[in-house]
């Protein structure tokens, strides 16, 4: 269920501002809720998101327990050169979800 969805334009003009959209399935359990037995449900969230463009970091976000389940994130970057965008979501339990996309800059 944790295959992330990403949307990156496949082609862009050099210097163009492009929008990138991401969506990932995750419970984002806050750690503040209790179950029916009154026991605290342990925190389980994605705490860091990063995006690198040909190896250089262009966007990073630290997430906290108030971020809703199945986080959707849209952000912008400048299309500088053809290459690859890599996305990383880092989970509390150490899991790293990844996705990548190619972009051609003309």
């Amino acid at each position, binding site marked *: 269920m944790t295959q992330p*969805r990403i*949307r990156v334009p496949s082609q862009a003009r050099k210097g163009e501002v492009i929008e990138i*959209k991401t969506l990932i*399935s995750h*419970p984002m359990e806050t750690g503040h809720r209790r179950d029916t037995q009154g026991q605290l449900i342990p925190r389980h969230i994605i705490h860091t998101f990063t995006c690198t463009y040909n190896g250089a970091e262009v966007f990073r976000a630290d997430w906290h327990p108030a971020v*809703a389940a*199945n986080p*959707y994130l849209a952000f912008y970057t400048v299309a500088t050169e053809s290459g690859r965008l890599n996305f990383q979501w880092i989970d509390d339990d150490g899991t790293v979800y990844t996705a990548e996309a190619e972009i051609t800059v003309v």
Partner: protein
Amino acid sequence: MLSAECAAEEFSRGAGGDQTVGWNRGLHGHERRFPWLVAIMSIGIGCAGAGLLTVDEHSRYLVDGRRSGYTYLSEENQRLQDDDFANPGLLWVERGRELWRQADGAAATSCASCHGDAADSMRGVRTRYPRFDPTLGKLINLEQQINRCRAERMQAPPYPSESEVLLAMTTFIGTQSRGLPIDVRIDGPAQPFFEAGKAFFYQRRGQLDMACAHCHEQYTEQRLRGDVISQGQTNGFPVYRFTWQTLGSVHRMFEWCNTSVRAEPYPQGSDEYINIELYMAWRGRGLPVETPAIRR
């Protein structure tokens, strides 16, 4: 539970609101008090650049006075539902698409082995459920039909009720009928079940002694705390519900409603819920399938 307490309070005072319910309601109050909030929401959700829907486009969600839950949403949430990328329900559709082709069970078959391309074979299916099944001699809903296929054709264990896999498959099959009008049969052998469902709708229940009809017929379009009570149409199910922070079936919604009037809910998949599911579907006949819809 809290909402149920307030429901009682609201009803005892009488629901004498005088506000007009318009398409663009919802936003204005926030605009006045939290202009920055509106700005952030526009950045977050409105970035697709989708234009506002016109009244004509809305009319497909309004059929002979039957009003889809879509029309009670704020514009931002309507855009979220319409955007096939941002709509989180699409996560389940994608999962269902994978499961559709995945062989399972002792027979090592997949849904696709029998049904081929879901876009053709499953088109319109969601509009007809629940339907009367001659072999079982009673109504079955889409979830039960999926599990029947799994048992009989695939020799696979049933998907548990409200599991991610069952929701994914139901949503995937449902979305193949997106935009098609709900068209369930209530005549012939289905009629007694329809009547039972109708009786359930008007039956008072729970400590608050309220029937479905109180909220979803008598007091529809009036305020319940900060919200407007909808007609309770089911054409969008399974829906991604913000209250749940996840996708849920119509039976989960029935459970939620029953618990809210402090009634003991029936189990999911029970005959009582299948009957009311048919009655609710008929109440929304002609409304387009919106699976997976966004609801609050």
